[in-house]
């Protein structure tokens, strides 16, 4: 890599996309209006479980502006399938998970509040809503199971008849006998029972979709708020609508935040696309905020019991974890992978625990489907592990830092094979720990605690030392673990005749700043000005293929594909340059945008080579084709493993139980950094979400399956005044297996921060005999602890 050049790797140019976003010139799906467009409104179930006895559409169909009303029967008659699940997990006994159909519109039964029953299409949205109210739907209500505990209780009502006990799968990983044997040798055992609270993602832009059908060509087009338009095309075309790829275009234009919730193929996408072909007019749907609460896939919602066997010197001997994971009413696209392959495989964390055994039961409930949400499985595991390590320190009477250091995977042990499948390629846990402790002034904390005490406040400090697996993923590994798609990435680097460049990427930017970061990468590698690189994403008609953006994969996988494509550009350029300068291609060096004959001052600028490629008058035509346009598919050899240390310092007002965040320090080892400003922004956003989970957010269902936290008045999203100014540092231990050395930064903030916050809260309350507080650590829970009352758990 070169030294930092303006607009190159390591520089922090302002984000090119922000001008249009901040000036109201973004083009989001809801900003688009198609000629002759109609509007869809979905009539949704207001009961969590029931049998649809009848749907009378007659009065509604006669209302002003109504064009069509479709129900599950119409879709079934047209052989439209359900939305598929993209990941298959097998139970301990080898049987595949129970995978009930997820119909586009309910077939016979409704299974959660929000389940779509009918689609009303009218000239205006108001008319569609009016008509939806006139539908006469008779539902015989069935008992609902709205929490994990209710769903696994003996005799619980079944969400799906073929999922006995509401179990989707009963999976395990690791060596149970070895773990049991190790526990027999334990000096002490640390245990924890915890709930990883259910979250509602709430991206700023609600979902939207516009379906179109061109009767002359038979082509379908879907504009949608997606993180991965090619995946939507694949799933919707092949499994739902039975339309081949060349007749289906999916466009995800500007998208206002995803956080995982916009990965999945939702029923509304299929419904509007199908309906457009029935009424021969475009069909537009835009989700309302309240509707988003009951239809966007929720996150987390695990209940776990874990035990850590400890030797007398504090070494971890074995870990045993038992988890129940809420799937909701249907299997969302990647839901089965979250508590298993994205979660249990990380139970070693940054520690040398030699044997680990994990069991996971996935459970259906009458709630919104639950799927990947920023971090997807790794926040759940990190929270469990980092809380358990603090409890282990307490159990052993050891210092929290000392017990971590005693069990760290040492730097010379890398690459490190964990007992739970993963092979970590690189990491330096001592470095991130030491730097974070220094930045957070860990050693000065007791003085701050004493001062706070003098003011009548309870001050606490907590840390997490975490590692996560992202950059998903090697296709072969993912396939062996149950993924039903490859997980490579695609880049097309198109050099234009005058030397400007358009890069087409299969990743998708919905806040990450790819248009800036990728332009920097290309500018740096090809030695062209940052401003002369355009990044295009989000349209299956423009981009060869791609798997989209999630799992912090865009730079490590998508950026690596770009490097591979640029390698081809440079190799071809060398041949052209060799011809023009009458030298051997082997003697051509490419640096800083110049092709030079080694050892001479003869050189050709990148732009000259590009021009020659498109105006091949003097050209090695027998050796290379004209043009300078290369595509690369890059399939990584391994996951990437960012890690780091987060430290949180809190002060609690004992009169009210309110937690005030005093300081938050994050030092993340994310490998190569392209744009430090964007990296810091990613950490800030992730930490804010992690703090939201730790202190504020909680999806609550009542026993009948009504979502009580169904609005922003009831569900607490973190706001600026909930957060301190963050101190953020990065370390760069390079990833060893991709050409950039990049690891990924999109999720580390949300993964590392929740346990740091709760460890700090528990530390602040150490005089009250508290060893654990479930998230969110609300003022009510803390006030109850301080007042020696049992904390009241929400909706359990």
């Amino acid at each position, binding site marked *: 890599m070169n030294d930092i050049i303006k607009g190159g790797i390591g520089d922090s140019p302002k984000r090119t996309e922000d001008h249009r976003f901040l000036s109201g010139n973004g083009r989001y799906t809801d900003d688009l209006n198609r000629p002759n467009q109609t509007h869809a409104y979905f009539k949704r179930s207001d009961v969590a479980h029931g049998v649809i006895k009848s749907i009378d559409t007659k009065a509604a169909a006669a209302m002003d502006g109504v064009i069509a009303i479709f129900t599950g029967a119409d879709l079934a008659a047209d052989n439209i399938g359900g939305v598929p699940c993209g990941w298959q997990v097998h139970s301990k006994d080898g049987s595949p998970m129970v995978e009930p159909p997820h119909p586009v519109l309910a077939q016979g039964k409704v299974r959660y509040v929000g389940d779509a029953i009918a689609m009303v299409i009218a000239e205006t949205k*108001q008319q569609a*809503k*009016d008509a939806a*109210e006139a539908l006469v739907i008779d539902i015989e209500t069935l008992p609902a199971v709205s929490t994990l505990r209710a769903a696994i209780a003996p005799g619980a009502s079944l969400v799906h008849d073929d999922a006995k006990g509401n179990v989707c799968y009963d999976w395990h990983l690791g060596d149970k006998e070895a773990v049991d044997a190790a526990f027999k040798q334990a000096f002490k055992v640390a245990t924890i029972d915890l709930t990883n609270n259910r979250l509602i993602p709430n991206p700023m832009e609600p979902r939207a979709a516009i379906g179109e059908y061109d009767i002359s060509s038979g082509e379908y087009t879907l504009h949608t708020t997606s993180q991965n338009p090619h995946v939507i095309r694949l799933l919707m075309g092949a499994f739902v609508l039975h339309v081949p790829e060349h007749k289906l275009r999916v466009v995800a234009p500007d998208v206002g935040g995803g956080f995982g919730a916009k990965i999945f193929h939702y029923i509304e996408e299929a419904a509007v696309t199908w309906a457009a072909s029935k009424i021969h007019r475009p069909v537009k749907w835009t989700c309302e905020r*309240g509707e988003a609460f009951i239809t966007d896939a929720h996150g987390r919602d695990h209940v776990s019991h874990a035990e850590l066997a400890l030797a007398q010197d504090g070494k971890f001997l074995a870990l045993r974890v038992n988890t129940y994971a809420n799937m909701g009413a249907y299997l969302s696209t990647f839901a089965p992978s979250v508590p298993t392959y994205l979660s249990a495989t990380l139970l070693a964390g940054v520690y040398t625990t030699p044997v680990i055994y994990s069991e996971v039961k996935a459970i259906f409930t009458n709630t919104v489907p639950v799927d990947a949400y920023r971090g997807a499985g790794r926040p759940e595991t990190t929270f469990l592990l980092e809380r358990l390590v603090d409890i282990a320190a307490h159990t052993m009477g050891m210092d929290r830092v000392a017990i971590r250091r005693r069990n760290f995977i040492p730097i010379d042990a890398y690459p490190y094979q964990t007992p739970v499948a993963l092979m970590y390629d690189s990491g330096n846990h001592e470095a991130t720990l030491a730097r974070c402790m220094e930045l957070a002034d860990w050693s000065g904390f007791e003085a701050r605690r004493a001062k706070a005490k003098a003011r009548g406040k309870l001050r606490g400090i907590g840390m997490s030392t975490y590692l996560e697996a992202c950059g998903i993923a090697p296709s072969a590994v993912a396939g062996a673990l149950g993924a039903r798609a490859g997980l490579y990435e695609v880049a097309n680097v198109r050099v234009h005749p005058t030397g400007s460049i358009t890069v087409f990427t299969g990743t998708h930017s919905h806040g990450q700043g790819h248009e800036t970061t990728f332009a920097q990468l290309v500018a740096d590698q090809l030695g062209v000005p940052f401003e002369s690189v355009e990044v295009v994403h989000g349209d299956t008609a423009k981009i060869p293929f791609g798997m989209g953006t999630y799992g912090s994969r865009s730079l490590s996988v998508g950026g690596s594909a770009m490097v591979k494509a640029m390698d081809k550009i440079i190799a071809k350029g060398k041949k052209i340059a060799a011809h023009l300068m009458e030298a051997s291609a082997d003697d051509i060096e490419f640096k800083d945008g110049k092709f030079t004959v080694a050892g001479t001052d003869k050189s050709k600028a990148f732009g000259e080579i590009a021009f020659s490629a498109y105006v091949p008058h003097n050209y090695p035509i027998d050796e290379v084709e004209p043009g300078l346009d290369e595509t690369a598919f890059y399939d990584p050899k391994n996951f990437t493993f960012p890690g780091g240390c987060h430290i949180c310092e809190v002060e609690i007002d004992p009169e*009210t139980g309110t937690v005030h965040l005093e300081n938050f320090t994050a030092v993340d080892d994310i490998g190569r950094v392209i744009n430090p400003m964007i990296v810091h922004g990613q950490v800030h956003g992730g930490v804010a979400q992690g703090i939201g989970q730790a202190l*504020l957010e909680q999806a609550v269902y009542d026993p009948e399956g009504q979502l009580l936290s169904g609005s*922003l*008045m*009831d*569900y*607490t*999203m973190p706001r600026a005044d*909930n957060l301190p100014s963050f101190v953020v540092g990065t370390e760069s231990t390079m990833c060893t297996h991709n050409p950039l050395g990049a690891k990924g930064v999109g999720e580390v903030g949300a993964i590392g921060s929740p346990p740091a916050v709760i460890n700090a809260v528990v530390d602040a309350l150490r005089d009250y005999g508290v060893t654990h507080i479930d998230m969110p650590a*609300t*003022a009510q829970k803390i006030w109850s602890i301080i007042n020696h009352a049992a904390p009241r758990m929400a909706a359990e």
Partner: protein
Amino acid sequence: MYDFEYHKPTALADATKALGGTDAKALAGGMTFIPVLKQRLAQPSAVVDLSGLGLTGISLEGNSLVIKAMTTHREVATSPVVAKAIPALAHLAGHIGDRQVRYRGTIGGSLANNDPSACYPSAVLALGATIKTTKRSLKADEFFQGMFTTALEPDELITEISFPIPAKAAYEKFPNPASRYATVGGRRRHVQTLHPPRHPQRHQLIARLAGQPPQPLIL
């Protein structure tokens, strides 16, 4: 939102007449009413916009602070008159909702809505304010009748609120973290300072507990 007729009268008599029709509703700042309409939780035949009535302004009348009904929270929060007469009221108004809400929301709208978690009702009760309407003058404890319920008749509008100026007053709330409405709001007033009451909490802390009890209580 359902369709409705929209009226924007410029005279009080026209406003009360328009409200006399069936299912007409008054629109003050709309900070609760507009979301209710958007969620189709109300279906009024007509909406009577009160913003053209000139019902804004803050003044001192004798030993009372008089605030007209359509005065916004922001106007109360930043008024030098309020700051001098009842600084606690300015503090209260400055902590309602967020900046956008404070520029739109009005004192009259808040009182007429009588949300049990709102800030103004407890102030009106604690300070022993008088609510003047198009028909009469009501003492605070006559005005509030229960959660979202007041003594107002359908065609009756609040025109102004008159607060007797206390020697001292204070307002604190414990906001709900999501809505930032008060989970508990408390206001104290000292009617006279020469002989502070022996049990100020019991007599003069006005607490409103979220939803239950449904209206302000003097503890």
